[in-house]
């Protein structure tokens, strides 16, 4: 008897909790969004920035009373998956999220290595995927036919665009006649950017006097830099991720290289200045937005992010934030929590003004039309120099 009574009470409590849970769930409907980030593996900093920005985007929406879709207010829930910066794990993370019918869309992976296999799965499962940071043009294309994928979008511009912007900047603004290039040959974005830079710079009459490479994980660039120094270029193009940049520029300084360096959007971390002990002073790089002449959206984001995480946001954080902004906008426009409707609404967004500028998806393409800015590092700050439109 005693046992029975106790189990009875237990059952009651259980039922009550369940009911309460159900009630709560029915009161506040939830929309689930997946995030695939490089939390471990080669690019932990990318993953960390992406995760923090995603969490901030979601909590901002929830704090503001949730996301209004079709007249109802939804809470946003984030399902975070680590892909260990690996292709196969990205695929299984994407498939895991795609198989979960609650998930309406995914953001990430950031690096193309993971974004390309994940995109294949998103496309075949008919679920929106927005990659914040993958600049490989192939991510949003059907790799066999070359036609654009239906469900895959990105929040950033592509390597060819950036390569062109940087080459033009070197020629037109810096009036460089000779350029040297140093890039990570085992990393895809730097390799693509450097190749485009080379072609465009040479076509416009410039000369590439040195083209040197290194491999991910290298810490010593003295041999390459000594070689570059020998060739006395007007400008050194360094499309490198921001944990390589400080080592390169400091070693360059020590070896007495005087030419200015020109970098890609991967430079865009405020950490860069601290990490490189200000050796980047006077150098230029291409970015998605200019913090000093920021739009109100950007200013608000930078302030909020810095307050929450005690560090300034980098490009991955800004782009992830924009990817979520785009997705929220699409969900609002879709009027229902449905994968297909979200995709259609996303493709139809007229213009979206985010942290990284205004963007619009042209008909049938997942690549946004957005402009780039050129920044200079001056007085320990990123300073706007010029805009570059597509």
């Amino acid at each position, binding site marked *: 008897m005693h046992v029975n009574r106790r189990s009875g009470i237990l059952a009651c409590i259980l039922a009550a909790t369940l009911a309460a849970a159900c009630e709560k769930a029915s009161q506040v409907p939830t929309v689930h969004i997946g995030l695939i980030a490089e939390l471990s593996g080669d690019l*932990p900093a990318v993953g960390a920035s992406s995760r923090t920005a995603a969490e901030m985007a979601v909590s901002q929406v929830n704090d503001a009373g949730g996301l209004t879709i079709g007249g109802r207010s939804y809470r946003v829930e984030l399902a975070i998956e680590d892909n260990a910066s690996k292709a196969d794990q990205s695929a299984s*993370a994407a498939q895991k999220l795609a*198989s979960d019918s609650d998930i309406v869309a995914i953001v990430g992976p950031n690096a193309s290595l993971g974004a*390309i296999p994940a995109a294949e799965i998103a496309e075949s*499962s008919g679920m929106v995927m927005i990659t914040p940071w993958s600049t490989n043009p192939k991510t949003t294309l059907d790799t*066999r036919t070359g036609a654009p994928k239906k469900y895959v979008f990105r929040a950033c511009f592509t390597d060819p665009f950036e390569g062109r912007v940087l080459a033009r900047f070197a020629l037109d603004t810096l009036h460089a006649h000779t350029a040297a290039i140093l890039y990570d040959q*085992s990393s895809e974005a730097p390799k693509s950017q450097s190749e485009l830079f080379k072609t465009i710079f040479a076509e416009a009459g410039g000369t590439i006097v040195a083209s040197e490479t290194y491999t991910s994980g290298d810490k010593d660039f003295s041999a390459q830099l000594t070689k570059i120094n020998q060739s006395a270029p007007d400008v050194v193009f360094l499309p490198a991720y921001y944990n390589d940049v400080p080592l390169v520029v400091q070693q360059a300084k020590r070896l007495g290289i005087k030419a200015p360096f020109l970098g890609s959007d991967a430079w865009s971390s405020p950490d860069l200045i601290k990490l490189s002990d200000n050796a980047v002073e006077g150098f230029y790089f291409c970015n998605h937005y200019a913090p000093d002449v920021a739009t109100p959206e950007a200013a608000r984001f930078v302030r909020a992010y810095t307050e929450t995480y005690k560090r300034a946001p980098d490009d991955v954080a800004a782009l992830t934030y924009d990817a979520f902004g785009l997705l929220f906008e699409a969900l609002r426009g879709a009027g229902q929590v449905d994968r297909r409707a979200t995709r259609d609404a996303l493709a139809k967004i007229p213009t979206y003004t985010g942290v990284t500028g205004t963007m619009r998806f042209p008909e049938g393409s997942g690549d946004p039309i957005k402009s780039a800015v050129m920044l200079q590092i001056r007085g320990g700050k990123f300073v706007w120099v010029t805009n570059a439109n597509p």
Partner: protein
Amino acid sequence: MSTPKLHAPSHRHRKGMLPALLAGGLAASYLLPYFGVLSPYVQLILISVGVNIILTSSLNLVNGYMGEFSVGHAGFMAVGAYGAAVLSVNVLPYGAAAPWLFPLAIVAGGLAAALLGCVVALLSFKTRGDYLAIVTLAFLMIVKSTLENLDVVGGARGFLGIEKLTTLPWVVAWSVATIWVIRNLVHSRYGRDIQAVRDDEIAANQTGVDTRRAKVLAFSVSSFFAGVAGGLLAHHLQFINPRMFDIAKSTDMLVMVYLGGIGSLGGSILGATIYTLLLEALRPLGAFRMMLMPLMLVLLMLFRPRGIMGMREFSWLLPACDRDAREAAASDVDKDGKA
């Protein structure tokens, strides 16, 4: 994958366990998704498990049965992946005929890897132990660096446009085939030769073992299947990149081999399955799982230094005649002092 049992119900059932496993696995892998029982996610995980089983059992041939410490397995995998992918994208016409030509592409990738395996085997004649480990490491770096410099296959940007041809039934078929072939090999005179080389190379040679042939055989069969796994992975992810085949990939395989136990195919199956499933199950822990996994590995090694199955084998993985002998011995007093 069916769960391995140490003691299957009756003798008659176990005759031809592997063919039964193949037939059952194939039927299940066709039918279950067809009826919607296996979600695409579970299928995908099973595909990774299968690919890892192929990698682990093939690496076990060199590292476990032959007792060398190869860290270059990812290199063979890369050669197989690129070989198969180039063949299926650029040479063989895809479309309607592709499913028929798919095994051809995979085998070709495997053969390319096996060829390089022979080269490494030639180097292993003079170099052994830690020096051979460095040889395999150098080999891996050379393969990776070559692929990065080959713009024909996309260089560092990776090779795209591979048809999705790897399906669960194919993976089941290939993993059972791998286990079957390696099992046949290790329980033949060639396999005993390989193990004799591990235990004492000079004594083996003085007992009539052609040690060079044993090394070439072990390396080529092992790298063949690494290549097969690479080909399957390429046609599964539809995208390959030199970065996928780095030392970290080799390290993963080493962990699976030694986790399961050297010199044991059952161990390799267990090691690959447990590692893959655990990694997947712990994914929500993010970076924390990468602290947990090595910790578990270290604890396991401390308590079972030879891995889960070190030098032991499930009886259903033994050839029929060895199995009978094992049973006869077991029914006597168990003198088998295996740790």
